[in-house]
């Protein structure tokens, strides 16, 4: 528990900033919906005529005239990308920062096994991501109430669940990479999150690139699929969970054996 508390305290400023920014952006998007709602039917037909551009963002299958359709795209951009960047930053720095800031020598010469340190750091990371998502859900609920909408709860819940798992997957994979680094991996983390986002866009453009959806967690957060199917794609999700396990195990295994120079 000591290291969990310490990690949460050390990262609280970054966490607060990211949480507030994501929640604020999402709130703005929801609050402007009533004003945009009247224009949405026109916008929807315009998007449907834009061919592969709309397909890339899943906008060809969503009805912009409905709140869920609008929210699906906005949520995808704000919570998907924002959450992915936050998760990547958390994961990539969680172990490497100790060596980069030369605090590893201090931490690892206390009577706590490396495995416990890794597990507590992972727990702290999960807690941060969980709180971020709960806060965003609470803000979303308040904003939806404020604009007088009453969307179906199940697809909304599935969307938030998918984004939560996406953030965990990116965080765990970055955590695994972090164990191999002894310097700042910020560029690697942010670059990876952006790459995964664009892989999903590419996979939406052509059938030949559909397999990329197995590589990117944005594959199972596709709002058009979730809203239309009423469930998460278990094929994409299973592969994602596999990556999560590989990231966590590889990170833990390597960090417990690496030389701290």
């Amino acid at each position: 528990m000591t290291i969990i508390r310490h990690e949460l305290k050390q990262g609280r400023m970054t966490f607060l900033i990211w949480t507030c920014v994501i929640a604020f952006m999402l709130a703005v998007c929801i609050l402007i919906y009533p004003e945009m709602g009247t224009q949405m039917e026109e916008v929807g037909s315009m998007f449907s005529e834009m061919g592969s551009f709309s397909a890339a963002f899943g906008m060809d299958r969503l009805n912009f005239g409905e709140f869920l359709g609008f929210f699906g795209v906005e949520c995808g951009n704000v919570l998907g990308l924002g959450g992915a960047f936050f998760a990547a930053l958390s994961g990539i720095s969680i172990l490497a920062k100790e060596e980069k800031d030369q605090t590893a020598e201090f931490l690892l010469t206390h009577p706590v096994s490396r495995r416990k340190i890794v597990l507590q750091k992972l727990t702290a990371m999960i807690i941060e991501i969980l709180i971020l998502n709960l806060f965003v859900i609470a803000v979303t609920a308040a904003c939806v109430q404020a604009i007088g909408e009453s969307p179906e709860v199940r697809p909304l819940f599935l969307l938030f669940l998918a984004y939560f798992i996406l953030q965990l997957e990116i965080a765990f994979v970055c955590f695994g990479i972090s164990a191999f680094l002894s310097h700042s991996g910020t560029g690697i983390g942010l670059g990876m999150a952006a790459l995964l986002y664009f892989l999903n866009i590419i996979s939406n453009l052509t059938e030949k690139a559909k397999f990329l959806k197995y590589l990117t967690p944005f594959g199972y957060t596709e709002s058009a699929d979730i809203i239309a199917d009423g469930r998460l794609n278990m094929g994409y999700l299973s592969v994602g969970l596999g990556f999560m396990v590989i990231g966590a195990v590889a990170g833990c295994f390597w960090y417990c054996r690496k030389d701290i120079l």
Partner: protein
Amino acid sequence: MDAIKTIALTKYYGRSRGIIDMNLTVADGDFFGFIGPNGAGKSTTIRTLLGLIAPSEGSAQILGMDIVREKEAILSRVGYMPSEASFYRNARVSDMIRFSASLRHRDCRAEAEVLCERLELDTSKKIRELSLGNRKKVSIICALQHMPDLCILDEPTSGLDPLMQREFYAILEERNKNGTTVFISSHVLSEVQRYCRHAAVIRAGRLLISDSTEHLGHTDARRVRIRGITSPPALPDIRDVQTDADTVSFLYGGNPRKLLQALSALPLTDVSITEPDLDEIFMHFYAEGEN
């Protein structure tokens, strides 16, 4: 039981040498100095003992426990002060000291307060506001507040002012009198000579010698300084000749009568014959290692 015992301890970083065949014994309750030039392998030895790096070959025990299998048990009885006093920059000093104690599941508040008072450390400041000397003090408190059985201190006094150095050694001597083993890695040989009962010299990853500081410091050679001449007298057994304007200095290990005869024939204006200090003796060890 020995506080530290290494048996053929070896560490390679890939193909680079860390330490080779290190056989070092530090008795329980000793005040031990570990001396060597930069890159000799002092920090590698300490990091291997503390489990920060894994040995390539050989084994070691601390307080009778194996450094690989019983690392946690060892660390609970050891206080370590690294040469770089690095902490979480945004944390307060008090938080850092408390964090260190809580990682040990100990209530060290009383001892931490005493140490802070003796070292004149302001615990309300943030780490990033501290000078190197003050960060060293935080490091000392984190290493000593839990009353460890063995203190491993890597270059502990660099950055501390002379008054604080004296207070720091006073604390260590008190702890040592109460049974704590103190193991210090240092460049400052006068410190080792003054405080340590035993010392070991390491060079190029190998242990050159380990003995009592009294024995290490004992030599028949004398440092002779002569003013009024520009070159040393023609005598055998002269080494480490240093010339400076009208002064010549050298180590003489031969017959004193011959030295006095040679001196009486020189146009000297001043002469001093003294025991060489530990620095000079260790320089001799380093030079021997190089040869």
